[in-house]
């Protein structure tokens, strides 16, 4: 039964990684931006949720506030900064790294240096029996949210008009523009949505993993590993990579604590050797 618990933990963690990586991947797929601020969106989103929870006691409000605030911040960063450097990867890297530092310092001043946790909402505080063990409902809730978001994103991409525009933009932004699609607006919307997904992950993670200075870097690195394995620009890749990394990371921490991160990085290096663009990535 222990292995089942590890797999469930891994899948729950993998779902959080999916929320992060899908945003990173969508943003890259459409505008070829490698967003290093993504980890900050996660952390600051989580902190905002924490504060709202402390004041209102409502988990739903905490989720909404974190996601909306960060989506707006993301939209502003795209509109006023990243837009000027379309397809120039070095300035984009420097800008997003700059914002990573700025957010890290500001959140340290506002929320302090101690790790902080959010209480999970009351309805999820129980556990379900699982053989000799019991398993926290909240983690099952995480898995459900992750699957729902994955399904929703798939439906959005394949079945809606905006999703079709998005796919057209990913294939060829110039032609999409020529066809009358408002690519400029699409860029801002997708960047904001990706940022919002990272914030959603931050608030959802806060009851399980604590929020601390440095969590921005830690999550950014794991999200990178996910998209390297799965391939940038692909939802399927983000899901496959996230589940893989989530499970491997959990087993690694349990069985090789000294090399916890190494167990994630070795498969990544291996995949880089055979497929530099990841399992589902496009050239």
């Amino acid at each position, binding site marked *: 039964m222990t292995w089942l618990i590890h797999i469930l933990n891994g899948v729950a963690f993998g779902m959080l990684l999916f929320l992060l990586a899908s945003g990173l991947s969508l943003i890259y797929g459409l505008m070829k931006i490698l967003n290093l601020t993504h980890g900050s969106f996660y952390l600051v989103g989580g902190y905002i949720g924490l504060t709202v929870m402390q004041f209102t006691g409502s988990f739903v409000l905490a989720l909404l506030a974190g996601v909306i605030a960060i989506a707006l911040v993301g939209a502003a960063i795209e509109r006023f900064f990243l837009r000027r450097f379309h397809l120039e990867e070095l300035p984009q890297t420097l800008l997003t790294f*700059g914002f990573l530092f700025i957010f890290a310092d500001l959140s340290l001043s506002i929320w302090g240096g101690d790790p902080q946790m959010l209480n999970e909402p009351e309805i999820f505080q129980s556990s379900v029996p699982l053989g000799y063990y019991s398993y926290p409902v909240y983690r099952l809730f995480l898995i459900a949210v992750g699957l729902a978001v994955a399904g929703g994103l798939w439906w959005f991409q394949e079945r809606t008009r905006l999703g079709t525009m998005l796919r057209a933009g990913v294939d060829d932004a110039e032609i999409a523009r020529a066809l009358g699609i408002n690519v400029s607006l699409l860029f801002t919307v997708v960047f904001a949505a990706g940022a919002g997904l990272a914030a959603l992950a931050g608030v959802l993670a806060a009851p399980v993993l604590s929020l601390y200075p440095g969590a921005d870097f830690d999550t950014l690195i794991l999200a990178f590993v996910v998209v390297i394995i799965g391939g940038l620009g692909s939802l399927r890749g983000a899901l496959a990579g996230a589940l893989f990394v989530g499970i491997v990371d959990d087993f690694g921490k349990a069985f090789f604590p000294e090399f916890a991160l190494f167990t994630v990085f070795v498969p990544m290096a291996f995949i880089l050797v055979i497929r530099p663009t990841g399992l589902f990535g496009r050239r």
Partner: protein
Amino acid sequence: MTSRLRLLIAAVAVVALLIALPAVLRPYSLGLSTKMLIFALFAMSLDLLLGYTGLASLGHAAYFGVAAYTVALLTLRTGVNSGIAFPAALAAAAVTGALFAPLALRARGSYFLMITFALAQVVWSVAFGWRSLTNGDDGMPGVVRPNFGFSLNNTTAFYYFVLAIFGLCALVLVGIVNSPFGRALRGIRDSESRMQALGYDVWRYQYVAFVLAAAFAGIAGALYAYYNRFVGPEYLYVVQSAEALIMVILGGAGTLIGPAIGAALIVFLEDFVSSMTAHWVLVLGVIYVLVTLFAPHGLIGLLVDFRQRRSAK
């Protein structure tokens, strides 16, 4: 006065100034100057890749840190003489570069950035996680400086030691970038396909540039281990790699003097700002944003613009 003569006079003046520094500076400032020289070398090594070959690496700290850890592990764990550890550290950095280059060079642009970043994190995770060997995030204090018959524990002696190595490396780097090899690298930076069509083995040139950049970063890393008498996983972290990037861009990529100035400036600012407020990280972030927006070609670029505008009047 011809521009060449002016350049020579400027170079002689800078060298004379660097040699005279210990006579005018207090030990604290001299120590800071030593750190500036070390990071200038680190930034110049990255520029060989970024400015001259056109490959933006976000994992240059890997080679810097591998060399620093080699010094620490050899001197603290095996008791090897610290002077012998120095060439070993250089070799370790070059070998790491030689192993990583084939992986990284399979990609370009954003993927190259991401792969170099990820590879550096692999090394970091070993240093961070393997506590029994590296002490994990506590790092390894007590690194001894080499002894070549005279002690380097004195600030002035160590400054001259670093200055000598820096000078030697700078001369070699100037030689490299002005050689036919260096010109070919610039050709590759400007157009890979054209150089390919001209019959250059582009991959091999990029590979050699990558390994050379790693080796010079290793020299800087080993010096930094001596300088601090300590190594820690932060030497390998992405923040270190990103700081090297901003040093190069702030000064001006594609020149050797630019990254050196950028490095000196960042090291100075870090010390200066940290003495006044706890918000150095915020200031650093703002520097990234401002440089990208207003000085994409660095201080050297601003200077060139200014001169062109003046001569146009």
